[in-house]
């Protein structure tokens, strides 16, 4: 008598014969328009990748990874110093941002839950997450570049850390909230204080989510250009380990070389653009796979 809801076939499409032509064409139009919009997105992504591959692959050679950026007008050269500078500053940013972001996310999810202060911080973190990165560049310029008397790799790292932190805070909090309360109760019942419960139970349960947050943050800062323009700027010589003074990095190198009149500079810019885009797309694919792996979306 009572058919279970699942047994009733889902009403997918109305009986077209009884639908007036006007309503039918409106529906067709919607389907065509929505499909076209989605196809447009895919075409743009495909076109960007195609452009990068066509222009960038020619520039790939051993010299790209072993030589430093050439001066104006001089032939040849590579982007080894820019790759290294980008790696060092991105690593600096993520090393600074990860503990701060994870701890702040932990505070929001575990200690502060409903308190007004935690709500305020959560809200401001969301704002910071979508703040224009050029403003963060201006902030770090005033904070570090001017007092220290010049562009420096440290300032670049700090700017990237400020961009990465809100991403990590947000994912950490979201992932910790997904951990069931019973796990925490079980830990507390063993007599462990809250800090130990968090470290050895909650964090472990949310591990893959937190790693995803760090990967997403890494993908976000690896391609940032605007804040580095005012903090690390660029440098055509080999990377120096003390990070004082300008440090070459891929995004700013691409920006300066892509619009230059020199053929070899433009070629290097394209090769760098291909390199950085493939890296970032790879990072975000890995991050999304980690996130959707065990639980599924």
């Amino acid at each position, binding site marked *: 008598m009572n058919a279970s809801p699942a047994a009733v076939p889902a009403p997918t499409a109305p009986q077209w014969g009884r639908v007036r032509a006007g309503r039918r064409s409106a529906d067709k139009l919607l389907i065509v328009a929505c499909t076209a919009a989605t196809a447009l997105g895919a075409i743009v992504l495909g076109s*960007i990748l195609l452009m990068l591959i066509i222009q960038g692959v020619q520039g790939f050679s051993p010299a790209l990874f072993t030589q430093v950026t050439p001066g104006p007008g001089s032939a040849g050269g590579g982007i080894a110093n820019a790759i290294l500078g980008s790696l060092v500053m991105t690593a600096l940013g993520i090393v600074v941002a990860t503990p701060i972001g994870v701890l*702040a996310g932990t505070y929001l999810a575990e*200690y502060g839950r409903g308190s007004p202060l935690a709500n305020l911080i959560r809200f401001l973190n969301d704002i910071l997450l979508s703040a224009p990165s050029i403003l963060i560049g201006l*902030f770090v310029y*005033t904070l570090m570049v001017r007092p220290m008397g010049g562009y420096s790799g440290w300032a670049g790292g700090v700017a990237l850390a400020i961009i990465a932190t809100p991403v990590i805070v947000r994912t950490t909090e979201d992932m910790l909230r997904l951990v069931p309360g019973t796990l925490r109760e079980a830990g507390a019942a063993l007599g462990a204080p809250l800090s*130990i419960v968090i470290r050895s139970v909650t964090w472990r349960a949310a591990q893959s989510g937190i790693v995803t947050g760090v990967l997403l943050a890494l993908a976000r800062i690896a*391609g940032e250009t605007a804040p580095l323009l005012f903090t690390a700027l660029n440098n055509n010589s080999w990377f120096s380990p003390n990070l004082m003074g300008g440090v070459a990095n891929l995004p700013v190198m691409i920006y300066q070389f892509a619009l230059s009149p020199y053929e070899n500079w433009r070629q290097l810019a394209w090769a760098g*653009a291909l390199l950085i885009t493939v890296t970032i797309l790879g990072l975000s694919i890995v991050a999304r796979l980690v996130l959707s792996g065990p639980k599924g979306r």
Partner: protein
Amino acid sequence: MVALSENVAMAARPPVARRAPSPVGDRIFRSAAFVSALLVLAVLAGILGSIAYGAGPAFQEFGFGFLTSSAWNVGREQYGALVAVIGTLVSALLALLIGVPISLGIAIYLTQLCPGWARRPVSMTIELLAAVPSIIYGMWGLFVFAPLFARFVQIPVSNVVEGMPIVGTLFYAQVPSGVGVLTAGIILAIMIVPFVASITRDMLDQIPTVLRESAYGIGCTTWEVVRHVLIPQASVSIIGAIMLGLGRALGETMAVTFVIGNANRLSASIFDPGSTIASRIANEFNEADGLQLSSLMALGCILFVVTFIVLIIARLLVRRAKVA
């Protein structure tokens, strides 16, 4: 029995009383978490403070006139924000006009029309658009899109509308090079689509299935379900998502710097070059000094205030959107 089991236990392990974990470590961890959370507050306050401090001299020199003046003359030390502010607003508005319908279309496609097996790859493709660095969008816009746009849109349209009263001023390109305010708007539209689309998709997914099924049950077409059930249900969050996209479009720097043409003049035509606050800061900051530097900071201050108002409204409308 009891004694025996106790004996066994004692034999197995010497009776060491476990110390209660020290409360100090607990307190240190808690304070570390608290201080880290406070850092978020400090950074936001620091951004506002430092930019306002840097902008001080310019606001003192020009006062309120800074907002209404269209001058930008390095030699005569005359600076005004009007051209950049209008360029920012117009390009962001164009981005919304173009990007929002596309985003809604993608969100509807992903939630209503897409076959199940294709849903993951398609939504991944759209989300990857958000991961492409903005400088790559700039290069794509300048080297791929702008030439095509000049050849197939700007030149034919300019030829048609030349001399017409209103349309002629709006759409006539003096130098049809492909770069300009409209090109910047189109590139910005592509950049905001993945954000708006993924938030809207999440909001549409949250609408109870019962609502959708009952509408289909009385014989509605997909269009009618979307129009009369889904859109009204999610309207507040969709407006929030659009505001979030607006926030991004206002502050976007590198892509716009490549394609907007960076001219300091007011033109009625959206095909002509212009500049935005962000593109002007990116272009001039490293060579600027004194009053010019301070004026650029003042532009940053205006950008800060505008984007933060937009973002605050957006976040109030979209309570918990996905991580962008």
